[in-house]
Structure formats: structure tokens, C-alpha cells
């Protein structure tokens, strides 16, 4: 049995999450904050596109809680995904409005509303063509 057949856990995108490495550690999304204008960006950026400077960006830990801006239940899934599922935009307290899949609740229009508090989950997003798990982030309603 070759190494190729061992299922790996790979990041769905590089450098977007820190996954907890010990019981005392916490997982979070990695953003960047511009020390000149104070804006926060996700995914992290090496330069501030507003200030157009490359010496002001610092990596920052984003809140693990946010609020639903809007969402929809998708009934026809792209390849590698299984319908129905919920996709949403989540507002983070630091400013960014980020795209995310939602887990931990029924894929129903009644499961969420604008303002519903959601928390970060590190989860498998899909698989690559070799069957490896692609790991990224999702959000789930708080207290579910």
C-alpha cells in the first residue's frame, strides 16, 4: 500500500486558520491589521490596499464569534459539496464581512436570521481529487 492512499488533512486555503494544537490552545481565523489606518482584513494580506503600504500590516487574531449578515440555503451544490447546505456572510466585530458555510443547524430558512450569533468551527470543507480532507472554517449558531 503506497503512501498515496493515506488520507491527509490539508488546508483548503493556505494561512487562513490557526488550528488549536493543545487543550489550552484555541483555534482562530488569521487576519491582518494595518497599523496606519486601523483596518482589519481577512484573509490576511501582506500590504494595506487602502494605504498602499507594505510596512504596516500585522497578523491579527480575529474573534471567534460573529453575527449573521445574510444567508441562504443552497439546494444545488457545486462539485464536492452536498446540498442542501447553508452559506452566509458573517460580520466579525473587527470589521470584515466574511463568506462562510454554516454548520450545526438544520439547512432551513428558519434556522438563522440576520444578527444570529455564530461561532467559529474548524471543519472539513470538502475533499480534493485524491480524497484528502480539505480543512477550513465554518460557523455555527452559538449554544447549539
Amino acid at each position: 500500500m503506497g503512501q498515496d492512499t493515506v488520507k491527509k488533512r490539508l488546508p483548503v486555503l493556505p494561512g487562513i486558520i490557526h488550528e488549536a494544537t493543545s487543550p489550552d490552545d484555541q483555534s482562530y481565523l488569521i487576519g491582518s491589521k494595518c497599523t496606519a489606518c486601523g483596518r482589519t482584513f481577512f484573509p490576511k494580506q501582506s500590504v494595506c490596499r487602502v494605504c498602499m503600504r507594505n510596512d504596516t500590516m500585522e497578523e491579527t487574531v480575529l474573534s471567534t464569534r460573529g453575527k449573521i449578515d445574510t444567508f441562504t440555503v443552497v439546494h444545488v451544490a457545486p462539485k464536492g459539496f452536498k446540498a442542501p447546505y447553508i452559506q452566509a456572510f458573517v460580520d466579525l466585530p473587527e470589521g470584515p464581512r466574511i463568506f462562510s458555510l454554516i454548520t450545526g443547524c438544520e439547512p432551513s430558512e428558519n434556522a438563522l436570521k440576520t444578527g444570529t450569533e455564530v461561532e467559529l468551527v474548524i471543519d472539513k470543507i470538502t475533499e480534493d481529487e485524491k480524497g484528502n480532507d480539505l480543512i477550513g472554517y465554518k460557523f455555527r449558531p452559538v449554544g447549539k
Partner: protein
Amino acid sequence: MKDGENMREVVVLGVGMHPFGRFLDKSLSDLARVAVWDALKDASVPAKDIQVAYLGNSIGGLITGQEGIRAQTILGPCGFGGITMVNVENACASASTAFRGVWLEIASGLCDVGLAVGVEKMFLEDRARTISALISVSQIELSKLGMQFVGEAAMRCKRYMRRWGGTKEDLALVAVKNSYNGSLNPYAYHRKAYTLEEILNSPLIAEPLHLYMTSTIADGAAAAVLCGKDTARKYMSEPTITVAACALKSGRYRESDPLDGDVPSTITLTANEAYRQAGMEPKDIDVAEVHDAMSPIELVSCEDLGFCKKGEGLRFLKEGRTKITGDMPINTSGGLCSRGHPVGATGIAQVAEIVWQLRGEAGPRQVANAKVGMCEDSGGVLVDGDNAAFTNIILKR
């Protein structure tokens, strides 16, 4: 510099289309040839007079494997070579961006006669390949995280309803109007007028969007022959259609969503640029083709283009103002949902519809006495939530 002060006036001498639909046995070149030769015939321009051609195509590289030099490989077999030829990709605005390139070539005085082409082939035996290619039209990070593009528009519809009210039934009324228009268009893929009930009973794709409220993949092509106004009389005694404006803008990073606040959308910024070039206002537009990749987005576009006030798109529609018989007819062709949306061909199909309307050749879709028409496109989705490419073309007679 004042816009266009040193630029030459450019006219659209002719347009042509390959009907939009499902043509499994036709190549990109087969589709383009029909549109191009029809446009030349319509323009009374011999092929040998074409000095420049811009070809818009979005996903042909992923569909056929021909990633580079698509213009040359598609237009070569149609009889064109040894001329200026440019490849254009700009998502759903590819064709209108190609149109703008030819307009600039002629307006600058560099060329006299040119050809703008938009072509796309989306139907393959392998449907998954088409879907994968389409996904690449949005910023790839979004697709990797699981974004489904109808769902993205669905969320924009929900934001609109949250701010301005309206129900799913209301939003579906756009498709009632446009499917009726499309039923009258011989170039449209879906030539059936749907009732509200049929639309709401079609499969749900992503709340609040049902299948008949979404644009469908299609094969097709559209072409336009452009010429300097000062040399147009060589080809016809009465060159009628002038390009009054042609604006192109990229999407941008925004602090907040225009559907939540009073930030102008990039559709508005692009339209304002076009109005400025043309020396016109929204009230000067008599008929418009707008980019309704998901039909309710037409309501937002009507507002963003200034045809009605913010939040009044629905009332504007319900009063019948945007019907063929209304005072601001929108998407007389049927729009993207009925005509079909071969991504890189759509922009020039809009130009063709407006040219026919302004020349009084739109048959049963003809609006009364149209003198000025607009074509608006927006395509691609960026991580920041804005679309990627926006065009606005104003034509007048």
C-alpha cells in the same frame, strides 16, 4: 481633458448573432462565424475592410483547452488574419469590454473599421467541466470555501428585501416580464412566457431564487461592426447608430455594502461615467438591457442606473414601467434568464438588441420611438463582495 474632446465619433454599422441555445456539435469558431458574417452583411462591410478585431470569451480556455490565442484560433477560420487582433477576458463583461476596445481603436483615429465579437461555448457532454470553468469566474478563494454563485446572488436579493421590503413573489415578477419578452425573441434560448406560479414551482436553487429566475448556461455568439462616423458613408448612406458612451470599471474594496447603506455601487459609478461621456442623464435613456444574471438583480440595477429612486425598483416594475409598452423598457430581449447567458457573448448580444430597437427592427419586441439605449454588464465576484468587471454602453440614433 474633457471626455472625448479629441476623439472621433464611432458608429455601429451592423450587428449579428448566432442564436443562443444548446449546440453540442458546434465549435467556438462555428458559433462566431455566423454572428460575424451576419454582422458584416448587416453593415454592408466587406470582410477585407476589417482592420481590427477584439474577441471576448470567458471560459473557452478551460472548456476547450485552448487557453491562449483564442481570438486568432476562432476568427482565423472565419476568414480573418493579418489584422490587429486582441484577446479579451472580463467575466460576464468580456464581450462589452471587447466592444470598448474596438470603439477606442476607432475613436482614437488609429483604425477606421473594426469588429467586436463575443462568443462562448458552455454545453459539453461533460457538464462538470462547464461548472468548474464557471466557478473560476469568481475569485477562487470563495469557490474553495464552498460559495455557490447563485447563492451569492440570492444573498444579495435577501439584503435588498431586508432594506427595501418585498417578497419572493414580488421578486419573481421580473422573470414573468422577461420570460414574456424572451418568448418574442427568435435569438433567445428559452422562448416561453412563464406565469408567476410556474416560476415559483420551478426548482428552488437558493432561497429566494428558483430555476426560472436564474440565467442558464448556453452556447452562442454576437458581433458588431464599428466604424468612424466620418468614413461610414462609404458603406451606407445613413449610418444611424452612434456610440455615445462606453465606460468600464473594475470592482473595488468597499467599507460597506451599497445594499445596506448609501455607498454608491460600482454599477452607479460606471453609469455616471457613461452619462458624463454622453452628456446625458437617466431620463434620456429610452430602453435598456441590464445584466440580470439572476432576474431580481434587475430591480437593483434599475435603481443603481438612476431609472428610479433607491428602493423603488419593485414599484417601478409593478407599475409596468419596465415592460415593452412602459416608459422605461428593460430587457426587451428577455434578458439573461430567457435569452440564455453564454458568458463571454452576452455584452454584444445586448448591443445587438439595442441596435435593433433603435433602428425599429425589433419586431414584436419593438418599443415605441426609442432614440437612446443603454447596455449594462457586471461580472465576476470578488472576495470583498463586489463584482469584478462593470461596463456601460450608451447608443443613440
